[in-house]
């Protein structure tokens, strides 16, 4: 009699564990779809900003510092590589490498942000005199709107990175279950891809216009 009960309990426990596994897999699929739908939604926001740029500027562009643009763009692109390395490290269960690469990604992000704030925006005239003000003309307004909206996403990405790094330090993720890391990585790549569209729109397309006020 006791043996029967035990096996029934064991079956129940097994069933629960199995259900838990199914739940996690189902939830993961929903999370992924949700995240991608969020990206589709955001694409319309960034698309709207690009439409604004082409509507107001046409085939002209502002005079921006080309070297600075190239450097910050390269830094951001490289940060996607380090993010990929961090995610791979997590998949292999290599905690040390994960921490190193994800913090390196955040550092690249901060460098990008610094480049935007100091050089593109000219927030610190003592270091670098900016070319544009948000209220000066349509070039300033759109540059600040586009880089500002993108920078907001970079900042939230960096915050996301620090949360994930901290959670990993506490041991919240495993080789198999690390949705937090995965979503952080996809988000970072997404913000990167947005910049791939923004960079030519701001720096490359059209002839540089010299505005007289």
């Amino acid at each position, binding site marked *: 009699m006791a043996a029967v009960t035990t096996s029934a309990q064991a079956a129940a426990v097994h069933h629960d564990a199995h259900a838990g596994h199914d739940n996690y897999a189902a939830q993961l699929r929903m999370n992924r779809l949700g995240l991608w739908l969020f990206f*589709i*939604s955001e694409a319309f926001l960034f698309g709207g900003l690009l*439409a604004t740029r082409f509507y*107001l500027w046409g085939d002209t562009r502002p005079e921006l510092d080309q070297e600075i643009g190239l450097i910050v763009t390269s830094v951001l692109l490289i940060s996607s590589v380090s993010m990929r390395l961090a995610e791979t490290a997590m998949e292999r269960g290599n905690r040390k490498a994960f921490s190193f690469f994800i913090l390196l990604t955040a550092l690249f992000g901060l460098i990008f942000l610094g480049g935007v704030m100091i050089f593109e925006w000219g927030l610190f005239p003592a270091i670098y005199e900016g070319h544009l003000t948000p209220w000066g003309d*349509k*070039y300033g307004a759109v540059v600040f709107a586009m880089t500002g909206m993108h920078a907001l996403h970079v900042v939230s990405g960096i915050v996301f990175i620090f949360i994930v790094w901290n959670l990993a330090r506490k041991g919240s993720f495993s080789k198999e279950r690390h949705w937090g890391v995965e979503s952080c990585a996809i988000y970072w790549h997404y913000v990167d891809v947005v910049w791939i569209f923004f960079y030519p729109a701001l720096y490359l397309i059209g002839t540089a216009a010299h505005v007289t006020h």
Partner: protein
Amino acid sequence: MQLTSLGLVRGLIGYFAGLVIGMATVVIFRLVLGMPAWDEEAVWVGGIIFAIIGFVLAIGAMSDWLKWTRGIETPMHHGPPADKPAWTRYFAVDYNHKVIGIQYGVTGLLLLIIGGSLALVFRAELADSGISFLQAGTYNTFLSMHGWVALAAILLGVGGMANYLVPLMIGAEDMAFPRLNAFAYWINVPAIITLIISMLYGWDSGWTAYPPLSLRGPVGYQMVFFAIFTIGLSSILGSLNLIVTMLMMRPKGMTLFRMPIFCWAILATSLIQLTATQLIGQAFLMLSFERTLGMPFFNPLYNAAGENIGGQPLLFQHLFWFYSHPAVYIFVLPGLGIISELLPVFARKPLFGYRWIALSSLAIALVGFLVWGHHMFTSGYGEYLRVIFMISTLLVAVPTGVKFFSWLGTLWGGRLSFQTPMLFTLGAISVFLIGGLSGPILATTATDLFLHDTYFVVGHFHATIFGGFVFPFFAAIYYWYPKMTGRMYNETLGKLHFWLMTPGFWLMSLAQMTAGTMGMRRRIADYDPALGVEPVHLLVTIAGFVIAFSILLMIYNLFTSAEIGAIAGNNPWRSRSPEWQIPSPVPEHSYARPISVVGEPYDYGLAGSQYIAMSGAGDD
């Protein structure tokens, strides 16, 4: 029970604390930067942003997520709060989709009443020519507020129907992301408070908020911008949740083409909400930045040489209508889904052309993205665009016509019964027909050039919205009332509501269109009696008050029937839909066992047909 244990009260405290902190932050920031401390625009903007965040934090809509960031797991709590009366869950963060659905629906109804009351006030002013009691500025504020309050009411009403019904209809326990669902509802509340505060300062452009007027008016605009931005965020998150729920959580056997037809309507609606809403958020944010920081997006700015180095007002209209035209389909598609859902039940016949209806919703949603320019025929954009937008707009009539013919096909030869929900469904079809037939007249450039900005547009718009949203929403309320409360509404009062409201609305709509063709412009506080529109306006005003009175009857009916109505039973309408096969009111965990789908959803009257099977049924 302490008052502060109620979530809503904590939220309100958070709102006003946030308002003060935000304003103080801006003042301190300005002082540090060496600017004059007070600037109405900047201080209010800071206050509003902090207030909205303060509300959401204080009510606890983000508590679980904030815990997750620190690695604390939060198991899902089911059922009413343990230490408080059960009704308090409706005034606090609750993750059950049925609670959230009712929260959305009741808030939507409340806003509909506020928005309608605002209209009654300026309708009374318009009943005769000359300024009687509303000064022009107040008139403009009331008119503009009527627009956005009513549109917010519709968005919330749609959210209510979708949140309550979709998980029930697909046999899911809850939405895919319950916490996101609660968050998406609760950010509406501070947004609505902000919208109402805007009346303190007023704003005068109508709901469209076209620059340059919206860049010059009082600071009330800033509150509108952030309120609508926040409601838009709610739309995006809510629709994301619904799409994932419908795509991933259907039971075994329920293919996409075996979903209840209302789900198709919500799927199409959600696709628009998910994407287009970003554009109005962006447009309003740009207006706010232009007002606060002087970034010239929309206002032209001329340099010494006379060149425009600033923005262009037309850009705003493009961004605005890219959302706001598809938004009309957000408002009507769920209602049209309700019509298709209810007709077979009351005709006891299969739904005519299920697949065509399902795909016509998607078609309307997709074509809806290509038509925004028909609002701008008189705005002065390139003339070649007029033809393109005219053709694309007229295309919308095709999938809409598919729906009408399917409804007629469903009614044809049916054994009809005329309870209140069916009456409102038929009323919706008649009213939507008025709106639909006046559409092509406005879509045609040649006629629109004369009718643009007249009362004809007002009549057309109200007919589509009443036919596409208000009538079906009321039908849905009466139809699912027994499922929500377990009791039946009062049928006599329901019928009285219908027979007052429907003729009232026909009269109002046709009179508005007549006034428009007689030369009455929209959005003006006074008019020249020589136009001859005075009697027409009087009719519109009387009809408006009749409609308002009939809606009060409904509110009375809903409140009293919850206490004294007859016990409804599980399935008073003999529906085949899954939600009617379980007890009324719906238990905390809707379905005791998973359901599976074994047949077509709308085979009413076909012998031996079966839609769903409850797995393990008969065990107890």
